[in-house]
């Protein structure tokens, strides 16, 4: 592991621009490079299911030496664009459950406000370390077996009161499902929201975890409902980011356009491509970036 960390370090170090103020890059070239980076991140993010947001912040901070506050701002708007852009396609399949989504958004939006609030008080190096840990966990989560957990043993009383049960189209007509573990799910959603507001990511992995494992919602329903929630959660912290100046137009512009284009392309490819190898490679990249973020944060490089 240590060897891997060291080799990944030298791999990325090559591209780090000089800290000198007179950078040779002009704005046009810089924007073009970021657009290409965003395209790649959005494309691979859509194919892997991890989302483009997880690599934008490491890419901007480690490779381009951008301050982490600008980076999470640019990442968060990319997350909103990806989520909203994909929603129309998801909705046509008729899987998402608007009641579950709306109820859990109370938790995610309040969590996001709290995360955005914390972002102003936590040192950038500490944010980098938290980011690295979240990257490593999302790799772990994406390698976990995907599939439906057994339905809840007894329907949750809160779930019944809130009429969260629903149905989705399956091969042989409508299939109905019950919902359990509402309290745990709600708590995990608050955590997902806080991470989203603190790190400028979609936290899709935690959202799916809460709905799959805690609430025992069928995988197809939880994935699509999670996508619809990501945009709303991100919007809750984006307003605060904007007022605080984390959203720099020159930086957010190429990143957002790139990620949006890349994720739309990736979502289209997903229908036809065999993505196992790509998914594996992307996970390795995220793993390396996670280690790099932790090392940089610990060494105080991103201050």
């Amino acid at each position, binding site marked *: 592991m240590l060897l891997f960390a060291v080799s990944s370090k030298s791999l990325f170090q090559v591209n780090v621009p000089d*800290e000198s103020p*007179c*950078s040779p890059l*002009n*704005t*046009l070239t*810089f924007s073009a490079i970021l657009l290409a980076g965003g395209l790649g991140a959005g494309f691979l993010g859509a194919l892997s299911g991890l989302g483009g947001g997880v690599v934008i912040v490491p890419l901007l901070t480690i490779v381009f*030496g*951008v*301050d982490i*506050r600008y980076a999470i701002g640019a990442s968060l708007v990319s997350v*909103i*664009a990806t*989520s*909203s*852009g994909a*929603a*129309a396609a*998801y*909705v*046509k399949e*008729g899987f998402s459950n*608007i*009641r579950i989504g*709306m109820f859990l*958004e*109370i938790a995610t*939006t*309040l969590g996001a*406000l709290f995360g*955005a*609030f914390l972002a*102003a008080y936590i040192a950038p190096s500490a944010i980098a370390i938290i980011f690295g840990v979240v990257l490593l966990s999302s790799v772990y989560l994406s390698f976990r077996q995907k599939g439906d957990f057994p339905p809840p043993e007894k*329907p949750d009383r809160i779930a019944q009161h*809130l*009429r969260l*049960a*629903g*149905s989705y189209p399956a091969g042989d007509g409508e299939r*109905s499902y019950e919902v359990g573990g509402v309290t745990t799910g709600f708590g995990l959603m608050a955590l997902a929201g806080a991470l989203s507001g603190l790190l400028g990511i979609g936290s899709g992995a935690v959202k799916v975890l809460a709905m799959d494992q805690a609430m025992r919602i069928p995988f197809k329903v939880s994935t699509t409902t999670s996508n619809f929630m990501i*945009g*709303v959660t991100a*919007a*809750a912290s*984006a*307003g*605060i980011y*904007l*007022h*605080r*100046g984390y*959203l*720099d*137009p*020159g*930086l957010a*512009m190429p990143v*957002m*356009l790139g990620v*949006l284009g890349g994720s739309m392309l990736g979502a289209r490819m997903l229908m036809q491509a065999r993505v196992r190898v790509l998914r594996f490679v992307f996970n390795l990249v995220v793993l390396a970036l996670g280690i790099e973020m932790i090392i940089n944060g610990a060494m105080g490089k991103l201050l």
Partner: protein
Amino acid sequence: MTPSTSQHESSRHDVKLEQALGNLLRAGVLTAAGFVVAGAILLLLRTGGAPVRDYHHFVPPDAQLRSVPGIFFGAVALDPRSLIQFGMLVLIATPVLRVAASLVGFLLEHDLLYVAITAIVLCVLIFSMAGGRGL
């Protein structure tokens, strides 16, 4: 336990509402992207050759680019950065609009519990868009 017929009907109703909302989201994103592209073209035409701004250190952009009225008036005056920020505002407003539309949907269904739930979410979002006073 089998879901009652009324539940089935309401879930089918939801699907129709969902489809309209999905299209609304896509329209919002495309509008936002349009403003960002317009701003980007103007920005790169004017300052494309200039060296990159220093992003190594965090210096918040001008106050005008951080407030909703400031961005609006800047965009009307075709200031490139304001046009990009206006696109970002449209983008942020898109999910908020979706929540507002859901509120209307639940009102039409006379589902008061979900009207209340949706109203809470909407309040949090509007609080954030207004700058999160005190945060």
